[in-house]
Structures are given as C-alpha cells and as structure tokens.
C-alpha cells in the first residue's frame, strides 16, 4: 500500500482540532512563547551600546537563544503526549486498526506539531526583528543583522523543532506515562540547542559556513531521528506492551 497523504491529512486535521480545544496545549503554545519573547525583548532593550562589540554580540546571541527555546520546548510538550496520551485515552487502538501505516501516522503527528511550532517561532522572530528595527539603538540593530544571528534563527528553528519532534514521539512511543514522557522529551530535545548556544556565545566562533555546517549536521540527526522513531514504533508493543516473540518477520509493526 502506497503512502497516503489523505490519511496523513486526516490525522493532521484531527490533531489541530484537538489542540484548539485543549487548554494545556493552548497554554503551552501561548504562555511559553510569550515568556521567551518577553525575556528576549528585555534583553534587547537592556543592551548598552557602550560595551565592546564582542560583548554586544554575546548579549544579542543570548537574547536570540531564548527564541530558539520555543521550537525546542513547544514541540517536545506536544509530541511527548502524541502516542502515550492516545494510548492512555484508548484512542490509539481504533486508529491503528485502520489501514494507516506507521510512516503515515508518524508523519501526521510530526507535521501537526511542526506546523504551529514554526508559525509561532517565526512569527515571534518577526516580532523581535520589527521591534528591534523600530525601537532599538541603531548599533544594536546593526549588530543583529551584521553577523550570522538571523541565519542561525532561520536555519535552526525548523531543525531544532524537527529534532525535538522525533525525540518526543520516540519517547512517547516507548513510555507508559504522559508526565514522564514530557519530562524526558524536554531533556532529550536540549543537546542540539546546547551546540547552538555555544555558537551564540561565541565559544564556538560563529560564522555563516559554520552555521550551515552545523545545520547540515542537525539535518542528518533529524533524518536519523526519524529512522529511530520508525524503528521503535511497533503496533504490538503499543497495544500489548510487549514485542512480538513469534516467528521472525511476523512482527505486526506496519
């Protein structure tokens, strides 16, 4: 049976409808980004132009790092619930009984977390740039646009979200408790952000080639993350809590 975007769309639409009516999701999608944009703005407007260029760059790096926490934390919270939450509610089995393949299911879940995350993250980045352009000191604005900060934001927002999504789904598929899954997913989403932080603080000197190289590396990790998730997603384990121990090749994983 070929990959069906109709089935992906069915789960995707269902997820978005469910998000809209879920207070926890609404809170996660609004409060968390709001907190980080406020912290970013405070950082931005507290900057003194009298400091050295390197120090100014560090402070801008820190303020923009807050923005990158959004595509890391928001999808972690969403995807950590995606499988184990459905399992707890009893809604997973009816879905797995349909012809949907695990690839379709995973892509649908990932897209449903990725889409709002990217919209929120880029929208807030736009708000940040607009506020900087309109209200910040010209030296600060120049520092924002001069270096690789904008490129890092644009490149790493979807890649960090991708990593967080696959980690969240993988942990969710192996967990038996929603809260444990959410905590683990947040921890697992952080390592790539640490690398970006090193670059933002100039511990690793930031440059366009380095940013692109690290982004390519993260893309590779995202691809491997996807494969890892596909490998741990097993219908039998999800339904019975055990892996099939029968004949080889008879796993009910598709």
């Amino acid at each position: 049976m070929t990959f069906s975007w109709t089935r992906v769309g069915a789960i995707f639409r269902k997820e978005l409808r469910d998000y809209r009516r879920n207070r926890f999701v609404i809170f996660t999608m609004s409060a968390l980004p709001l907190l980080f944009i406020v912290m970013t703005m405070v950082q931005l407007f507290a900057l003194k132009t009298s400091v050295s260029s390197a120090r100014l760059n560090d402070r801008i790096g820190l303020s923009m790092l807050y923005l990158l926490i959004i595509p890391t934390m928001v999808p972690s919270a969403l995807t950590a619930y995606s499988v184990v939450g459905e399992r707890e509610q009893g809604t997973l089995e009816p879905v797995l009984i349909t012809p949907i393949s695990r690839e379709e299911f995973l892509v649908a879940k990932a897209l449903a977390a990725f889409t709002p995350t990217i919209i929120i993250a880029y929208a807030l980045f736009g708000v940040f740039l607009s506020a900087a352009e309109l209200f910040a000191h010209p030296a600060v604005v120049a520092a924002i646009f001069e270096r690789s900060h904008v490129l890092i934001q644009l490149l790493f927002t979807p890649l960090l979200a991708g990593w967080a999504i696959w980690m969240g789904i993988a942990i969710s598929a192996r967990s038996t408790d929603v809260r444990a899954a959410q905590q683990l997913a947040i921890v697992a989403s952080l390592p790539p952000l640490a690398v970006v932080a090193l670059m933002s603080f100039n511990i690793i000197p930031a440059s366009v080639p380095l940013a692109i190289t690290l982004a390519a590396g993260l893309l590779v990790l995202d691809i491997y993350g996807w494969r890892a998730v596909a490998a741990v997603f097993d219908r039998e384990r999800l339904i019975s809590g055990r892996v099939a121990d029968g004949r080889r090749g008879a796993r009910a994983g598709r």
Partner: protein
Amino acid sequence: MTRRGAAPVSWGTDAPRSGSALVVDHLTKRFGERVAYQDVSFEVGYGEVFGFLGPNGAGKTTMVRTLGTLLAPTSGSATVAGIALSAEAGPQIRARISIMPESPGLYLRLTVAENLECFAGLYELGDVGERVAAVLEAVNLTDRANDLCRTLSKGLRQRVALARALLNDPTVLFLDEPTSGLDPVATRDVHDLITALRDRGVTIFLTTHRLEEAERLCHRVAILNTSLLLIGRPDELRERLFTRAVQVRTRAPLADPRAVFEGLDHVEGWEQSASGTYELHVSDPDAAAPEVARALVAAGADVLSLVESRHSLEDVYLELVDEDVEVRRR
C-alpha cells in the same frame, strides 16, 4: 443435570469450508511464557454472526487483535476477509475489516461528525459527508452529529464507535464486548443495531461475556478458555452436551415412581430432584410427553406440570468452563 461427554473441538458444521470470511488454523499466541490462546481453529462464513465466548483472560480480545493484524501470532495461520494473515498484508486486511474495541476510544474534544470524518479520511473514503451521514443514520445519531463526544453518555459513545466501525463497509466486523458496562436500555439499542446488521448480511465476530446476548444474536458460538472448548449452534451445543429431559411435577410424591417411569418406550432414565418433582431423560420429548402423561394418570397422580427441560447457553458455558478449570487444577 446430566451431561454427555464434551465433543472434541471441531470445525463448524454450518460454515462453508470454502469462501469463508475467517479461517483460523491452529493459531497460537504467547506473550513470553504466558499463553493467550493456543491451537485454535475455526471458520466463519460470510454473513454469519459468530459469537466468541469465554471468561476474563480467555484470549478473546487477543484473538480479535491478532485477526485485526495488531498482534502477530506465535504460530498457526489465518485468512481474514480472503487475505492470508501476515504483517505485510496488514494494511489490506485492515482496509477490509473493522474492529469496535471494548472501550469506544473516541476523541472527546471532537464532535461526533469530526470523529467520523477523521476515520473516513483514514479509510480514504470518497463522499465523506454522505458516508458519515449514512452511518449516523444507521445508529440513530443524526441529531447528535455536532455534539462533542465528551458530552455523550456511555451508551451513545458506544453507538458512535459502532458508526465508526461501519464507515468502511467492512467485510468482517469485529465487536469486542460491545455492551460491556452498558445499562439495559443502551444494551437493547446495541442489540437492535447488531440485529439490523445481521439482517443485512454483515459478517460479525462478536466477543461477549453475555450469554443471552450470544444466544440471541449469533448463528454459531465458540467457547474459549485459552484453547477452544466447543463450537457450534447454541441448540446444537445444548444437544451435544446435555441429554434431553422432561420435568414432571405432581401434587404428592409418587408411591412407586419406578413402576410408573420404567418400561416407558421413550424414557431412558429418571431421577427425583425434589419432593414430587422428577427429571426424566428422554430420547424425544415430543413423543415421551404424552406417554408419560398417560402413565401418570393411570397411576392416579395429580399432575401439576409436564414440561421439557431446556438448558440455556449459560448452562453449556458454565458446564464447559467449570470442567476446564477442574481439569487445569488436576
């Protein structure tokens, strides 16, 4: 209660051997050391309502999940809706069947229609609106289409789950304890829906604890307690397991019941179950009843009643399961 020796597990006599909706051949499922069910074989014909009975932990739900390709069997083989059971054939099999799990598993923050639209998409159905309207009408829920599922009672949620199971017009419909936890009115509603489906020729595989439900709805039943104990039509099982009997009640105990009952052509044996109450084992109740009545009148007895003893499916079930438990204890 007198019983015959339990007949060996056999293929159903009514189901055609070819072109069956389900063919299960020596299927076994183990979870590590624990056996969910073992060496189970049966066939279900197209258009048949097949009851799968058994106590908790007998392996009924695991069997449904295996045939629904959610679990892989440990050994044995099966054909579901004409397709050999395998992991590779999972999507094709799941496109042709439906399973209504014991728990409705609805998205409670979505409306009834939104739930059904989601699943219509998963089955890649055309004319989603029409299809959703048709299944809602089938379960009498058209007026609740826009209600959030969390506002529905348990009985209504079960009907939505049934509507969802009907969306893809399944070749085989698996109903796993469809009336579990429902009140009598909601149970009756679900029974009526199943009866309507049966009358439309839908093949139904029904697991249940409720024996009156199986007796009322199913063409044939199988009794499972990890392994298959018996399979057949409810009346066939009764005949296979119990001798036929006529119960006689007289106003006063008979002075010499042996003289009355022994020697009658159709009476194979008798026993006194209470004062003035006699259980006669007969070959043919219709032939035995007039003969017994004449003998009682000739003996001067005041006959209060003379009726055929009917064993329910529950008697059959309890007899088999109790015996199975005893055998396992030994």
